[in-house]
């Protein structure tokens, strides 16, 4: 592949899952995985990971994982831009491992350092009785696949409850993206940046 004539572009993601804010829970760990479209493939790095269990300190009520992310994607098509799906688990009262939150966000488009705070949510039980039994049995409702949260399909049948936040930090490097005609840096393009981009930059603000 001649560098002057690239046919793929690369997206390198460095960063970390800094920590989470789950006021009610402690001793949590998180898992992450990437969801991406057909035209994407990871070239190096880990697609999935699971972090250590972290406890809250007495002073700060934040959970710190500092779990590194390091992955490089190659792609031919920005469609299906990778998303990171984070799911957080931890023990409940009976020490059953239950899910404490799912969340997803797109990897930022623009090169540079980005910090994202993802609101997390968990599926709700379908009924009170279910809730009680699931609590008793330590089998809370879970998504069949955490990647569900990165897709829109089938979400209409679920009910979720928001639960905490996870903060992520990304350092993004792209290669050949501009050469293939995709300009994501706001300053360099002649046309003003699409406002939609800035909208997606901050999918949720407190």
């Amino acid at each position, binding site marked *: 592949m001649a560098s002057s004539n690239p*046919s*793929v*572009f690369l997206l390198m993601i460095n960063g970390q899952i800094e920590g989470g804010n789950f006021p009610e829970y402690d001793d949590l760990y998180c898992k992450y995985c990437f969801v991406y479209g*057909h*035209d994407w*493939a990871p070239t190096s790095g880990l697609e999935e990971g699971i972090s250590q269990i972290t406890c809250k300190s007495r002073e700060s009520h934040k959970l710190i994982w500092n779990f590194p992310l390091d992955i490089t994607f190659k*792609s*031919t*098509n920005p*469609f299906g831009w990778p998303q990171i799906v984070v799911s957080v688990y931890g023990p409940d009262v009976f020490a059953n491992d239950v899910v404490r939150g799912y969340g997803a966000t797109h990897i930022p488009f623009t090169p540079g350092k980005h910090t994202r705070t993802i609101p997390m949510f968990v*599926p709700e*039980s*379908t*009924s009170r*009785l*279910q809730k009680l*039994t*699931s609590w008793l*049995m330590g*089998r809370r*409702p*879970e*998504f*069949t*696949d955490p*990647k*569900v949260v990165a897709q829109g*399909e*089938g*979400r*209409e*049948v*679920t009910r979720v409850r928001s639960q905490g936040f996870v903060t992520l930090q990304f350092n993004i490097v792209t290669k050949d993206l501009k050469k*293939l005609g995709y300009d994501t840096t706001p300053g360099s393009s002649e046309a003003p940046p699409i*406002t939609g981009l*800035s*909208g997606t930059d*901050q999918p949720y*603000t*407190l």
Partner: protein
Amino acid sequence: MASTSDIRDKLRQKRRAFQESLVRVRDDTQALVSMAMDVNRDSAMEDLAGEEEPAETLRRSLKAQRQRRKKKLLEEMAVEESQTGADEEEMEDGEEEEDVETSAVEEVSEVQSIQQSRGRSETEPETESEAAARSFTRSSRDLPPLPMSRPSSSISESSMRQRMREKLRAARSKAESLLQQEVPVEPASRLQSLRDRDTLTRFDRETEPELRHVPDGDSSEILGKVKFREAVRRVRIDAQREAGIPTGEEAYNFFTFNFDPEPEEEPSKRRKKRRPKSEQAEGGQEEEGEGEGEEEPEEQEREVEREPAREDDEEEEEERDEEAALVRDGEEDLFLIEQSSQDFLEVRKAEYIGYNRRVQRESELLFTPSVRTVPASNKLPDNMQPRYLEEEGLYVGERPVVSLTNENILENRILRQDQATKWFGDDGRIIVLPDPIKESSTRPPLFHVEGDLDPSLQTVYRKAIKSKYAKRYMPGVGDTQGDYQLDVDVAGLIFSHHGLFSREHVLGARLAQLYDQHLSRQHKNLTRLLTDKLSGLRNTIRNMLELHGGQGLSEITQQRIAEYKQEVKITRQMRDAEQEKDRALLKNIVKVWKEIKALREFQRFTNTPFKLYLRREEVDRASDEREHEAEILAEVSELQAESWEDYEKKVTEYKQQNEEWKTWKKKQKAMKKKKKKKQQSQDEEEDEVEEESEEELGEEPTKPDPPEEPDLDAVERQVREKAARIRRKPGEPILVPELTASSNITPNEQCPRAEFGRRQDVLKRSLFVKVLYNDKEVSRTDSRALTADFRVHFGQIFNLKIINWPESIKLQVYETVGSSTTQLAEVFVPVPEPSILTGSATSEQLEFSSNQRVTFNHEGVGSDVPFSFEADGSNRLTLLTSGKLSCCVSWAIGEDDIPLAPPMTHASAGINSGIMQMDAIACIGASGLNDMKKLGKWAAESRLDPNDPNNASIMQLLSVVSGGEVTVPDYFRLEQLQEEFNFLSDEELDRSRRFRLLRLRTQEVAEFRGYKFVPTLEREVSEKVFQDYEKRLRDGEIVDTKEHLDAHRALVAKYLQKVRESVVNRFLIAKHHFLLSDVVLEEEVPTIGVLGLNLFKLAEPKRPLKPRRKERKKVTAQNLSDGDIKLLLNIIRAYDIPIRKPQASKPSVASKSTRSVTETFTTGHSSQTAMQGTDWPFNQVLVRPFVEVTFQRTVLQTSTAEGPNPCWNEEILLSFSAPNGDYSTTSLQSVKDEVFINIFDEVVYEISEAERERERGGLYAHVERHWLGCVKIPFSTIYRQSRIDGTFKVEMPPVLLGYTKENHLVSDGGYDIVRNLTEGAFITLFITIEPQLVPGETIREKMKDVKFDTEEDERVLLASEFFEKDAMQRFPDRPCLTTVIDINGKTVFITRYIRPLNPPQELLDASPNNPQETMELVARYVSLIPSLPDSVSFAGVCDLWSTCNQFLTLLAGDEEEHAVLLCNYFLSMGKKAWLIIGTAIPEGLTAYVLTYEQSRYLIWNPSNGQYYGQYDTFCPLQTIGCLINADNIWFNIQMYDAPMRISFDVTKSKFWKPFFSRAFSYPGLSSVQPEELVYRRTDKAAATELQDRIEKILREKIMEWRPRHPTRWNRYCSSTLRHFLPKLELSGGRDVAEEHRLELQSLLGEYRISGFPLHLPFSEIQPIIEAVYSTGVHKVEMSNVEFALAVYVHPYPNNVLSVRVYLASLIRTR
């Protein structure tokens, strides 16, 4: 006058009383009085006095105040006297006062005397308690000074104070004129008359006092004085008012009422009370005529003690009028001595200032502005009328909203300031900028990218509301807000001309018209109006001139005067014109009347009832003349002034021109001189110079003529002339015409013939009116006859309930003569404003006319026909039929008084609405807004105010438009920007391969589903990508006969493809339909049973040694990739593997005898033993089987075991890769791969010595493998079942050359269990997928949510749903099926499929005597129809059940179809048969057929035609869910579900739960099956052709598979085999083996043959090839091998083909 003396007496008396009180006060507390001036001291005093009795204290304190106040007054009076005001009024006041009393004190007392009554009124009912007195004080203090204490009765009207003051002024002027000195006490009657006086006079003077404030502001003394004067005046007002208004009842109230001390209520109450008291006062005055009268009644009512209190009250009143600033040091000096002595002696307590005191004191420092409306006169400069710019048509912005109270406060405050007037505009209101708040924001909305938006600022989404008015229909019609109704009232019509008019009628009409005109003119009385205006204007000019005394006229005033003059001129002209018209009209009326009279005289009859009277009004000649003269003089003077002005202007002009001319002259002269010089000197330049001079001077200006002086006499003459012409002569009586209809009409019989004819004609006529709404006739009036006076009365009201917007309302007038009807005229009635309602609407006269030409031969003058009144026919007239239609259109009022009119805003929809003028959109329509020209036109027409900011945007737009033409396209686009937003043009999108690829991927087209890495660049997408896809598209249309061998099959395949596509499409929709369980994993709520079981388990003793089965973890298919999935096969053991048979040189004859007729190939064992002896010692039969597993072209094999019942117990791991690497459930379900488990016999041949020598190699043994049998398990079954565990029958060819069954027992025929036990070989397998995949069952369930069409009864569907659910709950692993989906995608009840159907006749004929054989044959026939599992073809979507004829047409189907067909055949054969829904190995959920035969139940596998007894251990059917026949479904509710352990007696409700029971009886569902199946005979020739083709293809394939070896074909053997195959077919694969062997005898001697016939149902060529390949016959690698191949296709009815392939390898043994 009496009043004067009254007042004087009263004053005197008052003074006396006052002095007395003073003395008394002094006596009481001399010291206190002496130091009364200081407020502090007052309080101190009070404190001192506090030790005494409260009342005393109060009195004392009040007295102190009174003293203080009195002093102030005194001083003021002094100032007042000393002042020499220029103001007359002031002078007058002064004089008055002096006149009354020289002493100021007396004046004060007068004031008091007048005021005291009020004071009394306030305090009288109170007790002497200090608190009460104080509270009153406070209340009066709290309020603004005097006027405030009498609030106006209504806020909107001007305050009482103002009114009174104005009245006062009026009275004063009156008094002035009457030379009255004593104004204050006027008789009430006089005042009342004054009240009605013209307001003009009072405006002349009203502002004077106010004006004086301004210059005097800085001097407190003068201010005080002025204020005092005002106070005095107010007092007078009071007096006057007191005299004016009271009633007796109020007077009573006044004395009895207990005043509430609350300050807030005080004003209103006082207002109420004021009048009674004053009336009382007045009454007193009038009755007694003396000042005493006022006090006496009061004193009578009061105790003597109260006297001082009253006086205190009087003091209070006084105080109220005073200003705080009046306290002066000078006054204090008066009492200084007493004060000081007291001071020194005094011991003070801590000072406390009471609230009231503080308020009192503060009130001296603070100013509380009044909330009363300030009269406009106060705010304007002198002599100025408020001028309203808005009314003059100038744009005045909207004032910001300020509450009236606040505005009043502000105005009052401003008025107290210096130069207050500069704050007020011409209209007397405070100058304000227009409201700066725009209705729409100009700033673009701010989108917070950062968030942090205040929640209250969050935008809220509201659903777009469809505009109600978008359509022409009225809004809300049909819903509650309801209907609109127009009432059209057609009252009647009057003809102003009609063809049937006689001449007299014409004149009469004209007279009536003139008279109407006259009346209307008189009603409007323009002349009078203009005359008044004229005089008003003149007065104004005169006033202005007088006011300024003709000097020092400011620029503006001059200009205004000029303007006025101009207006006077115009008005005069207008008035003259009007007068002239009046005069002419009058003359005309008289003239026409005279004509009528002449005509009547002439024709000697009277047609019209008109009669004109002229009433004479005599006038006073002298005054009339005077007025006339005055008018003329005024006019003359004006005209003269005008003409003088004109003249002066002209003169100045002339002078100027003259000047110019003179200069020009001079120049010319100079020029001429120059020219002369030049001519003399330089001739050659002459021409040029000439021109030059000419140029310089330009044209010669004409010498101006001096203007003529205006001829003043002529002017006067003209005026007089005009007056004579247009005006009534002085002294001439005023003539008032009166038209009556009182004259008699000559009866018909006295008329001449022509007239009689006319009258008859009139009677024939009748008229009616049609009402057209929006050009549609909605109703018409009754036909009414035309009366002799040409009036028609209809008086009909039409109520139109309307739905459409009113666009036009039309009335058509029709005239009927006999039977012919002609339309006379059409009248458009304006659509009424919504405010015009039925009750209030006035009737309108709408004129109409018709240009119809009508002529008559009688007296009627006709229409559009010239006629003349003159005898000689001159002066011809042509009149058209015309008239007035009186009608009224209005909006109706509903029952509950709600107008049935559209809301006000819709008024613009009306055509003639005035609103349209202002609303651009309404005027030119919304679409017109795009049209700039129209907009501009509209703007020009409506004369928008360019200064109005509301119009700014339009103005700007217009300026843009006028500047540069904006091109507006002349076509209309709904989404004109659509193209802009398009990513690419459509053509480009189609052309681009990349986009096409992307689109196909999104559409989930099979070839591109999950396609990875669509290249970025167009050039990297190769056309190859689409080849497959395009090929498939092409194939969809072209039937490829080559691949399918058979046209029919090809068509079927195509049809199947289509069905599949439609189902897949449906499935794709369903796939995107998610259930909660698809997304969320949730534990089921445990039922009580489960909970109990769990509890029980807890109680269970622990058994650590008991092994427990652990559930394998299920893996969802998503996160899988190639190599992750393994297929795990455990091959455990096999039974009854055929054993090798030694090569026999001769057939065993004995075997024949032992063979039963019905036996299968179990013969020959007796001979075997004999024959085996040669090769193997001990007669031992040997077979060395091994198992080879083929899956996805991976081949693995087990080790070789020995014996016919080998035990391998080996595990084989095969890796599985999904197509396209797509591991989704869908894709896995559509995997068509099968696992082939082949059993081979490993044969080792030791190579003979001779061969060894020949070969010279080291090869001593040759290993051969012989195919024995095969088990095929589709992957989809494994996937669906996730585990297959059991013993399977090995498919074996009926003839295995060289092999035989080891041990077989002789059965006695029939349905023998033993026979079944020994029929074939069996293999025990365990197959599973590692890791366990979540089966795609969910999709099946999902499909239930996808509603399919159905024609079933809702009741049945509900019941079936319930039935299935119930079954599911009780026995979750027993399949239950009640409804299925047919090939059209409709839900069909399952019993409809069962119906006796005839099998092909030839099958029945084959063995008519043996029903059992026939059944077998039929089963075989059914099994010959190729099987095509739905789950494979339709990707596990659902079962599609085709009917039997569809099945036979398609020649492909699932087990269900086979089973249904078989069941139906059996039923038609008179058997008892049921359809079994159950699970079997390896098919999974399947359908079998159950028959009842000879007290035994037989279970038929429809796919292969096998049948099993109920107790057959090898029966593949594992569970039985339900039984179905044509009229019921039974669900198995027994404890067991294995066929062996259940009872099939469906009548036992304990074992079987019927669907249709007594509670829900069978509704008699008609079958979906055809009545009878029609079979067509298969073309034998085609079968033969097919046979040849297959053989050829197979030959080629085998050669292809052996690329490195020559393939030799043994023809002899082939032909033998070919000969044998039809026999095999005929016998059904049995009992031919022996003969066959015999036949092969000759060959067997020379060759070692291994081979077998394959039997397949024919569907396509590919399965045959696969089957042949899987046997591995071609793998023989010996060099001397020869092959034999025979193919036989046997046609069965309806194109069912049985294919038999005989394949053998031959090795020459010697």
